């Protein structure tokens, strides 16, 4: 560990650039799926523990399209979007709809069960080996030590574009407004004629689509494995918990922040500690909240 620290700060400070860039690239994907989670959480009060698995599924769909139909991942994004949207809609209608009103833990456990199911199906179809897609794009080198694959740059750009589209959609479109109205007060929305069930279905499906896109990006810049989903789920929870629900800029910022934290942890302590860093961030934020609330004699709910 000390050696790694020395490497970063004494011998080759230029490596910091690499770590920071890697952190940003991966953080963009985190931020995207965190946004989706915040959406579902804020609108339907469903804490989707299968979030990470939706991401991985998206990645695997891109993988399948690439291997069997030769479609490049970037091109496959619209297809994945549609497929994941449909999938999300189906999951809502079959499962989520029935557990929304309930005891909070039931909805959490339902999504956890879904996560288990999805992981196992993916394991059966694709096997437990780690898979990646070679995007066959150029890799740039700077300053001798810094390598930046074009794929990562494109991924960042795509993530940004996508986030922008979603934000515009939420602000301008009728459905976007309906979603925001329902999030604020579902009963009032119903009184005003909004079909909240459709809104919920759309929101959940939209989240699945967002995750799907994030998954495609992951397939290009990172790795896919059926059981990695849960680590993504934990990360997105950590981000949303730290940033708060309503605050889009904070979610994005925290997403990048976590990416940086993870990459630095990875360099200094080792790859296995990445998820430990995310969990630690989650626990630290929650502890901090507790301490703050104690001043007001309240508890964190």
């Amino acid at each position, binding site marked *: 560990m000390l050696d790694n620290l020395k490497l970063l700060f004494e011998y080759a400070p230029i490596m910091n650039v690499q770590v920071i860039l890697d952190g940003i690239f991966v953080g963009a994907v985190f931020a995207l799926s965190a946004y989706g989670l915040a959406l579902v959480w804020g609108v339907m009060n469903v804490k989707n523990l299968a979030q990470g698995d939706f991401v991985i599924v998206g990645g695997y769909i891109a993988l399948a399209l690439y291997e069997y139909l030769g479609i490049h991942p970037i091109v496959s994004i619209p297809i994945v979007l549609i497929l994941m949207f449909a999938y999300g809609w189906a999951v809502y209608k079959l499962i989520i709809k029935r557990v929304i009103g309930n005891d909070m833990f039931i909805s959490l456990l339902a999504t956890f069960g879904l996560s288990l199911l999805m992981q196992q199906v993916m394991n059966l179809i694709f096997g437990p080996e780690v898979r990646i897609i070679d995007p066959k794009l150029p890799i740039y080198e700077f300053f001798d030590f810094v390598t930046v694959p074009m794929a990562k740059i494109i991924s960042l750009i795509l993530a940004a574009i996508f986030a922008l589209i979603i934000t515009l959609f939420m602000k301008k479109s009728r459905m976007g407004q309906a979603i925001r109205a329902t999030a604020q007060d579902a009963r009032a929305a119903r009184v005003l004629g909004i079909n909240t069930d459709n809104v919920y279905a759309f929101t959940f499906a939209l989240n699945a689509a967002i995750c799907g896109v994030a998954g495609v990006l992951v397939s290009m810049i990172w790795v896919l494995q059926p059981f990695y989903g849960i680590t993504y789920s934990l990360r997105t929870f950590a981000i949303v918990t730290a940033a708060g629900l309503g605050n889009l800029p904070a979610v994005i910022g925290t997403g990048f922040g976590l990416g940086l934290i993870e990459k630095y942890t990875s360099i200094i302590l080792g790859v296995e500690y990445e998820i430990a860093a995310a969990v630690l961030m989650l626990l630290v934020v929650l502890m901090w909240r507790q301490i703050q609330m104690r*001043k*007001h*004699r*309240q508890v964190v709910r």
Partner: protein
Amino acid sequence: MGNPIINVENVSKSYGGVKANMDISMKVEAGSITGIIGPNGCGKTTLFNSIVGYHAIDSGSIKFDNQEISKLWVGDIARLGLLRTFQQTRIYNKMNCVDNMQISISHRKGSASKMFASRKGEIKDRAEHLLEFVGLYSKRNLISGDLSFGQQKLLEFAMALMNEPKVLLLDEPTAGINPTLINGLIDRLRKANEELGITLCVIEHNMRVIMNLASDIYCLSNGKMLASGKPSELQNDERVIDAYLGGH
């Protein structure tokens, strides 16, 4: 004047812009029944919440039995002998009535033997006795969540008695109760005060009830203490009448 068991001095509390309590001072005499009245939204429940530790106060002091409690937690305050009932009646809704009662014993001397005490015997007896006192004995084995609202209110009251508190703060005890049952409840409140020696502090909207029950009354309006005194004094107080009828 006797010894005030609750001494509220210059307490203020705001919620993001709304000044719910402004410089409130109040004394509750030990062994008495004190009433708190005032139009809706004047800050009565907020005052209760401040006293029992539900939220922090912005300024002022609250003393219970001469001990400063304004920085203590709800649990600590309850263990000192200061309990409250809730406006929306809170009970353990998946447990039956007897169990609700049994777990409501005082936890002041929390010893290990008490933690693991068996559920038969003296505690159960006392629980059943109190259930009979409030008229719920025949329903004692039912799940409390299945009781009617009025019955749950009685259960909550019985649970408070089980705890043998020194002071009990009751938040609108007659609200939502069938008028024919109100007299019964008043009787029980009086008995709890006279026979069991529990000091009561009651928020009430029902003037007939509170004027007959309480020996001292405090009237709040718009977050401030408007008037205080004996029931007869307040009944004829212009300001109190205005606060209710004049209503802003």
